[in-house]
């Protein structure tokens, strides 16, 4: 194996030598294909086209590169083999390869190897110490399908795929403006993954974009397979249970967010795009919100917010009230709870804690169940287990109801990654509720409120209820008012404040004037 230094070596004019180096560098990779050919008739030069069979569309390469180089009426490069006349290789070759899309010039072995590894084709010509890279990558990919993690009833039913070019195409289709900036980065020492940073030039604030770019460029890691992997590397507060960037599989969501001033990071070989910066109310957003009637959106968003709070606070609240504050409970309910509590071996906080853990395990298991077993096991698990536990007297039924309800309420919150906060926070809340009752629980809630209020990502606060400005942001985020009331300003973008012009007044066609 040749050392690093060798890679940085310049190509030599000797084609055979170059080929040897390259072949050695690739070990004995069975998919490395070296096609040697002769260019020119009168003074044929040796040339070689190198590519990885598995990565390219072989037919395209043969047709657009090999054949084009071979069939010619003129010499590709006049002069004898061995002469090192300076020639504009790029121009010459590009003229000769009309069917090839993108060409670039290479000088070092490293560049050649990177090109080949990327899936492009390298063209080396005897006597020239430069090489040409031709784009031809065609890795295996699938057609756009349903986005599995974020399916909706309304709206486009298509999600990103693993090919970054396809994904870019999908976004371009939705934002047909030249202002869509797409910056290219290559991340990962071993994976050398293509990464794209997208934003709308006329909307996204420059300082935020610069900062994000700087952070991405400073990533130094072996492999990057998914935006989620780089999340930790660019986050400011990686220990917070609240996630400040959002992963999405949907191009329509991405386009909408870009329009609001967010930035998107796409990673090759992952169907997920990372949207930055994200805010707290993204917890209760789904893509359908934009497609449904605004009134239903309002109701649903409120419902999701309530569900989120229930999932975190229901069990601790129940434990705190039943154990510390009996006076608060209406008597008939208290009697029921007390009656069912009798005979339960463990104190309520401990029982609640274990029940929570058990349900978490069941939830985790449910994710991984093969589809054939899913319904059967869930019925067995939930029903039989729960019922038996109650009848055996291990767990009071009141507690089971509350804990199950909290768990199910958690599913009402869109997207699994948002579950992290509630799954982590439940236990400290339970602890506080068990030790100090309702006051303790409130202290915990306050600490979490402080935490949320202190989160910032890329300078943008994570939680903002009333934006500085005249329009109550809460209304927009939470209530999603009908179009007339919806504010027209963009939350993040400082330029181009208005995302919508004034509404036209509807007119009754028969009357000829406003109804």
């Amino acid at each position, binding site marked *: 194996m040749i050392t690093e230094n060798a890679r940085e070596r310049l190509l030599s004019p000797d084609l055979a030598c170059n080929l040897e180096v390259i072949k050695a560098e690739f070990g004995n990779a069975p998919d490395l294909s070296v096609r040697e050919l002769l260019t020119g008739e009168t003074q044929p030069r040796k040339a070689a086209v190198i590519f990885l069979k598995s990565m390219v569309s072989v037919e395209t390469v043969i047709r657009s590169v090999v054949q084009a180089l071979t069939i010619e009426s003129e010499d590709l490069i006049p002069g004898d083999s061995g002469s090192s006349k300076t020639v504009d290789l790029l121009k010459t070759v590009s003229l000769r390869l009309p069917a090839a899309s993108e060409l670039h010039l290479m000088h070092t072995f490293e560049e050649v190897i990177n090109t080949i590894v990327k899936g492009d084709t390298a063209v080396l010509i005897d006597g020239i110490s430069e090489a040409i890279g031709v784009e031809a990558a065609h890795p295996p990919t699938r057609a756009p399908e349903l986005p599995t993690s974020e399916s909706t009833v309304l709206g486009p039913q298509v999600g990103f795929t693993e090919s970054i070019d396809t994904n870019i195409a999908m976004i371009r289709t939705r934002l047909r403006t030249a202002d869509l900036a797409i910056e290219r980065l290559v991340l990962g020492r071993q994976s050398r993954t293509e990464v794209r940073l997208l934003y709308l030039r006329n909307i996204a604030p420059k300082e935020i974009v610069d900062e994000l770019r700087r952070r991405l460029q400073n990533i130094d890691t072996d492999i990057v397979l998914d935006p989620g992997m780089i999340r930790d590397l*660019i986050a400011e507060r990686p220990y917070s249970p609240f996630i400040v960037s959002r992963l999405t599989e949907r191009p329509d969501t991405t386009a909408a967010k870009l329009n609001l001033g967010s930035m998107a990071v796409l990673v090759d070989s992952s169907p997920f795009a990372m949207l930055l910066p994200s805010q707290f109310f993204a917890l209760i957003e789904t893509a359908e919100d934009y497609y449904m009637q605004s009134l239903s959106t309002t109701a649903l968003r409120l419902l999701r917010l309530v569900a989120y709070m229930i999932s975190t606070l229901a069990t601790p609240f129940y434990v705190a009230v039943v*154990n510390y504050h*009996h006076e608060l409970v209406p*008597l008939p309910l208290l*009697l029921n*709870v007390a*009656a069912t509590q009798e*005979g339960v071996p463990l104190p309520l906080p401990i029982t609640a804690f274990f029940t929570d853990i058990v349900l978490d395990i069941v939830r985790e298991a449910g994710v991984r169940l093969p589809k054939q077993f899913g319904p059967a096991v869930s019925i067995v698990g939930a029903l039989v287990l729960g019922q038996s536990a109650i009848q055996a007297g291990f767990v009071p039924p009141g507690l089971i109801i509350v804990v199950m309800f909290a768990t199910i309420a958690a599913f009402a919150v869109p997207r699994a990654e948002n579950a992290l906060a509630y799954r982590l926070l439940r236990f400290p809340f339970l602890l506080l509720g068990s030790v100090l009752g309702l006051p303790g629980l409130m202290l915990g809630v306050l600490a979490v409120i402080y935490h949320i209020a202190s989160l910032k990502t890329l300078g943008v606060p994570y939680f903002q209820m009333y934006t500085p400005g005249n329009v109550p942001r809460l209304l927009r985020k939470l209530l999603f008012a009908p179009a007339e009331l919806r504010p027209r300003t963009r939350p993040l973008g400082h330029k181009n404040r208005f995302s919508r012009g004034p509404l036209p007044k509807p007119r009754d066609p028969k009357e000829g004037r406003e109804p």
Partner: protein
Amino acid sequence: MRTRPLARQLLIPVVFALLSALTTAGCWDLEEVDEIGIIGSMGLDKGEEGRVIVSLEVINPGALASGTSGGATVSQVVAVVLRDEANTIAAAISNAQRRLPRRLTTGQVNTIICGQALARQGIGAYIDYLVRTADIRGSALLATCDTGAGLLQRPYLNPLPSRTLSSLAQAAIGSGQTVMTTLNEFAVRLTEPGIEPVTMHTVGRRTKDVQVKRQGEEVEQTEKSISVEQPVVVGRSIEGELPDDSPYLQPYKEAGTGELLPAVTIDIGIAAYRDDKLVGLLDDSEARGFLWIDGRLEQSALEVPDPTGSGEMMGLKVIRASSSIKPDLKEGIKFNVEIHVDVEVAQAPLSLSFKDTRLVSALEDSLRDLIMREALTTLNKVQREFRSDIYGFGYQLYRTDPRIWQELEPKWNDEVFPNLDIQLDIQTRLRAPGSVYGIGAG
């Protein structure tokens, strides 16, 4: 990208660790809900030498809960009545604690019943305890009875004696026979000048003995109490305590169905206090007279003779009644009470037609007479016998002219109030004939 030093990032984990450390010291106030003894209601009776006998109805949740319960049930006793005597209520409760394996908690107390003997002596000190204890809710119902403990002993259409009384109170208020006084209201009336407290008053009366039959069988009614779901009484006995054949303890089987009903009706009225001492009782017919002036009448059924002279009685129902007391200080101390009553017809002789306006006004007149009679009868009784301003005339005087009130206050209840000149201005309105499908001739 770390923007804060490690120390700051660990702040949250450290906070939670510290808070977790609290558990090692123990959760101090944690009381499992099956370890508490829930007191549903409290009865206060007069003990010897100025002491008070406190009866506590402690509810057994296991016997009452609906649905399946998992663990072993303790017993089928619905409630246990603990009784103990001490100088203060707090001491009595703490004494009673030694008989119960659960920790007594007063957080769910919603009825407090004072025995008459104790009430005549004065319950001010006990009201102070009840108000001062944060646990006891201010919306608890206060009632006076012949003996406080009596009503706690027998479930009555409701497994919980405490809930019995409050449901009864709510139902009775609906027919204008009593007032529902909460602890808060009693305390306010104690402290506000010129107005004296009233509470609900209940007493048990025995109905006639009835033949009892079980389905398909002849069973004799016995004098002995049948111990089905009988509350267990633990503690001292009270002088004048209900004997074994007391109507409270007798179940009553309705012929044919075999259903258990008590052989007792509970009479309801109003107990009038002066300061914190009971001074008099109004029975259910006089209670309405009080409520006309008091203004809190909600609904009631009245009977007036038919104005056309047919000799039959007509039934009227009160839809709305309100009153306001206004002092008239132009010449001496006088009060005008304006009473507005809206009624509808509930029952009338078939021959009447209410399209006749003369009939309507005659009806309103005779209603006015009825109200005047009732209100004045009660007012006279209150003024002469009770000598306690439970209506709040003094309070209205205080609000209008505090200086005059300050002069008169020391002798208000004894001298001024009994001789007060009170004018009733009653306005009645027949709102609805009450019949959509007229059977009458009109």
